[in-house]
């Protein structure tokens, strides 16, 4: 879409107004609070339909987990030598999705990217829900679920400790820390907006809940000072977390001696891939939501274009990593290394490999074209491709490296059973259920922050 109202001089000297449509502070509040203030019985039909579907999928997910615990992980197709398959693919996929939220709320904050204010709340919520989905998979993929508390280093009379040199334990700490810090960050950001809702809602119960969670916020100068300080500190703490979490997840693979897993570029490459997939998911959810919630003037084409640029940058980094890995597999002179990569590209899973390459390397390159990165339809379609590609990336890494291991007699083509797709779909159900509840009851835009970047907030505004 061409924004014809911008001249060359204006484009290079001025910063584009981020909030369009001449909205006033009050208009922003009204637009954002409309949904949380709608009584439940008057919920929009679309929301009800969406919620019914996703909640059903979520219930299916939980029932499948019960069945899994009852029957054992034999219901999946995992078998020697592919002991890790969709369970860990889904885990890594969901952890990755979460990264966009933290990048937007922490790193873009430190980089003073004001446009983040229109999308950070949304993306942070997505982070938390994605991490919830992610944490379920390692929890249920263990064979003996009744001793799953062994994950935690709990003092006990048997002196039994988890292996501190095991990356699975590091995962627990890394993802756990990430979840706790992200949750705090999200909640601290929510406080002023919850207070706004508390002051506006009519229903007594709603007032009680919003009041409880807004922690007595009155918007005084002192409150704001503390708030800003807390926000900066949380941003500074979250920034290394963006890198550490997925780096630790990559260690699950990289520290093993398996060709295809064991390579030093994994930590930064996983981080780039995580941000890449996270932004694609933000686009996937944001594009329909801004339409249905009437937020087109707050989340504008400019925001969409910026997110697409990040998808392009991180997608190119992922492409760089694919290329370097391939080159180094040859350069190493190690026949096992080169075999793994040739097997990936031309072996039995070539279809998955080329799906991954086309979705993750070729798709984002289309965003070089301004016409495409400012088109809503193109952004949506390409974001879906990236989502698919990033799921396949984890599949390719995990399954293709395992299925032809060092012992040719044990080579085995892994195929999922009916249960794997059910678990994946079910996790989407959980994700969307949480997300729809968020959209319904909480302010989806950080109102206070958006107001801070509107022209009225600027001293120089005429």
């Amino acid at each position, binding site marked *: 879409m061409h924004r014809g109202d911008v001249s060359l001089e204006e484009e*290079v000297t001025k910063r584009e107004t981020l909030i369009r449509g001449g909205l006033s502070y009050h208009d922003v509040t009204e637009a954002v609070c409309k949904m949380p203030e709608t009584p439940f019985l008057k919920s929009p039909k679309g929301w009800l339909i969406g919620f019914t579907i996703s909640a059903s999928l979520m219930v299916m997910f939980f029932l499948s987990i019960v069945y899994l615990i009852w029957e054992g992980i034999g219901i999946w197709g995992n078998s020697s030598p592919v002991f890790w398959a969709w369970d860990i693919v889904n885990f890594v996929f969901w952890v990755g999705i979460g990264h966009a939220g933290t990048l937007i709320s922490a790193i873009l904050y430190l980089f003073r990217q004001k446009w983040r204010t229109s999308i950070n709340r949304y993306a942070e919520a997505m982070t938390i829900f994605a991490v919830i989905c992610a944490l379920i998979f390692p929890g249920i993929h263990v064979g003996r679920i009744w001793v799953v508390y062994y994950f935690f280093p709990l003092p006990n009379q048997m002196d039994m400790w988890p292996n501190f040199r095991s990356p699975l334990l590091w995962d627990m700490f890394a993802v756990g820390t990430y979840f706790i810090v992200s949750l705090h960050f999200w909640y601290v950001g929510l406080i002023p907006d919850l207070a706004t809702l508390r002051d506006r809602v009519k229903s007594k119960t709603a007032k009680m809940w919003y009041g409880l969670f807004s922690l007595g916020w009155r918007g005084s100068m002192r409150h704001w000072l503390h708030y800003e300080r807390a926000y900066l500190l949380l941003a500074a703490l979250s920034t290394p977390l963006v890198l550490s979490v997925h780096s630790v997840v990559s260690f699950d693979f990289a*520290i093993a001696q398996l060709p295809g897993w064991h*390579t*030093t570029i994994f930590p*930064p490459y996983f981080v780039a891939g995580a941000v890449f997939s996270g932004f694609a998911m933000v686009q996937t959810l944001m594009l329909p939501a801004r339409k249905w919630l009437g937020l087109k003037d707050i989340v504008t084409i400019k925001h969409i274009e910026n997110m697409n640029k990040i998808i392009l940058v991180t997608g190119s980094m992922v492409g760089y990593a694919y290329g*370097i890995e391939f080159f180094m597999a040859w350069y190493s002179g190690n026949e096992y290394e080169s075999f793994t990569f040739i097997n990936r590209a031309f072996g039995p899973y070539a279809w998955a490999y080329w799906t991954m390459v086309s979705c993750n390397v070729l798709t984002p390159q289309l965003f070089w074209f301004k016409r495409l990165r400012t088109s809503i339809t193109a952004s949506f379609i390409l974001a879906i491709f990236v989502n698919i590609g990033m799921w396949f990336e984890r599949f390719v890494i995990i399954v293709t490296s395992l299925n032809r291991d060092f012992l040719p007699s044990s080579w085995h083509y892994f195929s999922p059973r009916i249960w794997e797709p059910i678990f994946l779909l079910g996790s989407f159900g959980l994700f969307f259920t949480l997300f729809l509840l968020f959209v319904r009851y909480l302010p989806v835009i950080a109102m206070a922050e958006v107001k801070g970047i509107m022209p009225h907030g600027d001293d120089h505004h005429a």
Partner: protein
Amino acid sequence: MKMLTLLIVAAAGFGFWVLGFSSDPTRSMYGYLFGFVSALTIPLGCMFFVLIQHLTRAGWSVLTRRVAEFGMAVVPIFAVLFIPIVVFGHDLFPWSHTGHLDETLIKKAPYLNMSFFVIRAVIYFAIWTGIGVWFYRKSVEQDLGGRFELTKTMGKVGTFSIILLALSTSFASFDWLMSLQPHWYSTVFGVYFFAGCFLAGLAFMSLMLMRSTVPVTAEHYQDLGKLLFGFTMFWAYIGFSQFMIYWYANIPEETEFYLHRLEHGWSPVSYALIVTNFFIPFFLIMSRHAKRNKSVFAAGCIWIMLAHFVDIYWLVMPTSGAHHWQDYLVFDVAVLIGFVALFLAAVAWVMKGISMVPKGDPRLPESIAFENY
């Protein structure tokens, strides 16, 4: 410093190095490679900085950009300085000993051979000269005023330039540093080298700005300091990841890199790097006050620059296999001084008669008025 002084220093540095060269050419060539790569990382870092500013349409950094442009515009001199490395390549790179190669190196020969090595170097220098000189010229052209479309053009050319720059820098680090131990490989090596380049570029820019007349304020230093701080962590993160992954899997052909750096007196250097290149700069420039205080920040930049040179030394020198590498340390330092002085002399030459500020840049007012919040 005046250009002439710098040239004299450079001549002295190289002259002293020649003394070492006359007694042990092979050992001295490692020193030459060290000095060459160390100095080259500065213009490469500047190049990354300038391209990123154009691509992100940054406003805050306009005042600081010209010094980086001077730094990158002189990159062609390194193409000339590379010639001795080609001539004495046989002393440096074990893969060049055709006829005495083991099975693995024969497999690698299609990539690791002298002619392809030279062709690649020519390509790298062509890319760097193209980027360095073109962006410098366009920026100077804009000084004449009013040419806003140049900002857009530089943004557009920046797109594919940064891809070429990223690839060429990575492969140059594979060729000139990684292949010194030709059996060893690491996919993240290019990223590690990039982190070092960026640190060198930022430290150079900050120090140049302090000595210049550019009206930068504590706000700009704070921002440059934030980047230095962030990339100090990034360097440590990449270095740690590489070490961690190789240490844990403990595969001999991969741990070889670290084993070389734990013998012949290298282990103190290896352990010291963690402190000198991470902990000290981390605490030195973490505080907002440190970044805004010119003297403290200058100390931080000088420290980071020197620590970065030690890092490059640590990458190059253990591969020489010399048991008493310390004996030639003084020549290594001399040749480094020679390279840096020559680089600075070239910068001084380029600077002549050119504005220290991109005064035609449409975002200059934004940069002048810039404040952290």
